């Protein structure tokens, strides 16, 4: 398994400051610190592993090139997840278009089946996530990732606090209903 290069005690804000100052080592450490969380977010959003590395890489390359545009180091985390969210949204949009234009082939949609009971529960959970509309799914996945405030969620998803609240409410109601079935 890919392990972050830095230990969890590493201060992300100090790393962001150094990375913005042009330190490639700090940038690499920053990627190592966030790669697992960002990949987890992308996987939960996209639901497939075949393009996970590419999408994670795209997210971090955009992070590097946009680092100078980051307003304050404290807002780094919501900013990074906003990039990841936009990368996923673009990917899902392209996939939808591709499905309309390209005839279905087995190589296009690898279907994974659960191998064990524990994996089965996870598979069911992933299936439920996939059934959610992307705008609701992104909020559920973000909340599963960390306890964000409604304001942060609104910033990440380019939306309003009231819209975030209502989408989260609908998503949670859907998940509760599906789990009780």
């Amino acid at each position, binding site marked *: 398994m890919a392990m972050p290069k830095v230990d969890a005690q590493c201060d992300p804000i100090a790393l962001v400051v150094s990375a913005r100052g042009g330190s490639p080592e700090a940038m690499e450490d920053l990627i190592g610190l966030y790669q697992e969380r960002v990949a987890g977010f992308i996987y939960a959003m996209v639901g497939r592993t075949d393009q996970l590395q590419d999408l994670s890489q795209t997210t971090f390359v955009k992070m590097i090139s946009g680092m100078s545009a980051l307003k304050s180091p404290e807002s780094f985390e919501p900013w990074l997840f906003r990039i990841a969210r936009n990368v996923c949204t673009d990917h899902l949009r392209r996939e939808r278009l591709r499905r309309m234009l390209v005839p279905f082939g087995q190589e296009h949609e690898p279907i994974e089946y659960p191998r064990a009971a524990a994996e089965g529960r996870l598979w069911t959970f*992933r299936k439920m996530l996939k059934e959610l509309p992307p705008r609701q799914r992104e909020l559920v996945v973000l909340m599963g990732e960390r306890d964000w405030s409604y304001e942060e969620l609104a910033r990440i998803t380019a939306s309003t606090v009231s819209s975030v609240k209502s989408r989260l409410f609908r998503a949670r109601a859907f998940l509760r209903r599906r789990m009780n079935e």
Partner: protein
Amino acid sequence: MSDHSRHFLALRKQAAAHLPPDFARRVMRESDRLRRRRAAQTRIIAMTGILCAVLAIAIHAAGVAALDRQNLEMWAKTAAQARALEVSL
């Protein structure tokens, strides 16, 4: 820990398992490669722009020079005709 949190943690672990151990280094390399490519593209765009400007100026200058030559020839012809008329009178 709730079931959801456990599932998200499991998803994160599964996802991390699909990243190579030198992922951060690869990202840095890719970023460098893209930066170099963008710089090369910018250079090509700038050079093409300069070339187009030089070409446009050259074409314009050649056109103006041709027109000047044509005008001078016409003036010379007109002056010769005027002189001939003067002599004949």
